[in-house]
């Protein structure tokens, strides 16, 4: 056998071994299908805690699939056969509305509400304290683009209240709410307009709850998807998620304003 043939055969053998190792690494430890939850990446911390606790509370194993709300909406609409998702938890109810319009939602329950706040850089070096400070010369404010809920709602509200034109020269467009917050954290902007639970994940940075942003609010909703292979199990999980001693405790600890009391999936 020539050396080339040996190398070629070796590469195929390596391919087989690597595929076997990958299968071993990622194979499902349990034969039961988990509940599949599409959830916004910004809800990762409370949702990981909920998914960890749920089996201990008698529920089924939960598989969390993270992404940006828009991506999750796309995924909920393009499901592989034999791999339906059960629950959709985007960062804002507007995505649940869009999913409902597409016939994807069997029912939804509010989980928490959020309001827009101003998150300053670490230690608030420019001494921001009020809305007028954001309009000072040279102040840069990161706002997520309108594709993100906070970007759209903040723009609409500020335009309606006649404040957007004054703020606009100071605005740096960020892709998502966390990109805006991260820009404030690393100091590339002086402040960012973000949701309050997002701001709570940034210790060491001042949070300004300003009356000018009081009308910018959103609601996190958990939706049971029509494609769910086991809608009853999905509803039971949503009930746990919205129970004060269950999921809501984790959402509250993560800085969300939880919605209590919660009913069943409507």
């Amino acid at each position, binding site marked *: 056998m020539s050396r080339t043939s040996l190398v070629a055969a070796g590469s195929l053998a390596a391919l087989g071994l690597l595929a076997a190792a990958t299968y071993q690494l990622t194979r499902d430890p349990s034969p039961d299908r988990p509940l599949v939850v599409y959830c916004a990446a910004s809800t990762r911390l409370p949702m990981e805690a909920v998914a960890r606790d749920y089996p201990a509370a008698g529920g089924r194993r939960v598989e969390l699939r*993270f992404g940006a709300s828009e991506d999750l909406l796309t995924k909920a609409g393009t499901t592989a056969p034999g791999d339906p998702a059960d629950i959709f938890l985007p960062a804002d109810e507007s995505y649940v509305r869009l999913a409902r319009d597409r016939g994807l939602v069997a029912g939804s329950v509010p989980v928490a509400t959020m309001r827009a706040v101003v998150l300053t850089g670490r230690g608030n070096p420019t001494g921001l304290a009020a809305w007028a400070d954001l309009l000072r010369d040279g102040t840069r404010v990161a706002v997520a683009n309108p594709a993100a809920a906070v970007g759209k709602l903040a723009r609409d509200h500020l335009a309606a209240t006649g404040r957007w034109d004054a703020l606009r020269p100071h605005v740096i467009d960020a892709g998502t709410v966390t990109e805006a917050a991260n820009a404030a954290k690393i100091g590339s902007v002086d402040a960012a307009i973000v949701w309050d639970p997002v701001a709570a994940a940034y210790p060491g940075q001042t949070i300004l709850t300003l009356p000018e942003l009081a009308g910018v609010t959103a609601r996190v909703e958990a939706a049971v998807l029509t494609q769910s292979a086991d809608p009853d199990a999905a509803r039971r999980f949503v009930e746990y998620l919205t129970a004060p001693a269950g999921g809501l405790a984790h959402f509250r600890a993560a800085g969300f304003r939880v919605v209590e009391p919660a009913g069943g999936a409507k």
Partner: protein
Amino acid sequence: MTPAGRSAVPFYLALGLIGGMYVGLIVALLIADLAATSPGHVARALASPEIRAAVWLSLLSCSITAILSVWVAVPLGYLLARTRFPGRGLIDLALDVPIVLPPLVVGLSLLLLFQTAPGLAVQRYVPVTYAVPAVILAQFVVAAAFAVRTMRVTFEQISPRTEAVAMTLGCSRGRAFWLVTLPEARRGILTAGTMAWARALGEFGPLLVFAGATRMKTEVLSTTVFLELSVGNVEAALGVSVLMIAVAAAVLVVTRTFGLRGTGLV
């Protein structure tokens, strides 16, 4: 000294200065990353079972992608470099598509492909979307295009003379390719493989859309960076990035050292 008696130092100094600016930029980026994280963050990242699983899946999936890319790149590179056939220009153009398409569109295209009748037929037997095969396929689509480009240049630079001599000595075209041209292309094959491996490691956009971000299942290191950034954990994201650089450097150095041993190229 040059034949004219003038020093070549200014020439090399000019080249060094221009080239050095780019190298300096890369080094500055690395220093900025290292300054914003700490060994503690890297250690904490490595202590997480989810991130350890992501390291293993990254190593395995990138290696599978690299081998598959080389297997595809060798015949395609040879055909494009040595032959003229109808539609060659179109194939050449098609090979640029994965390189020029926005990464998210590559992911979306893969997602749509596996919703068509043939795609769904495949998925009845092998789950692809939001599973490990999607990780490998998303990496492969982009990485193979780079490998093909490398192999094409490699074969273009190898003189067809030795292959022709082998054929005059009685070798068939295939045997001459296998025994003469392929061993000569060894360095190019290794470069194509390592380039595909490195490209696969950094792949993210198509992965997020097509494979999703499910911890312990489809999470690779680039997904980990996204998940950490999405909850504002910039330090951990940078810690994982530093880990990626270290892993990539180790694998590439080892591969090149062993792969080119005895060729006088290392």
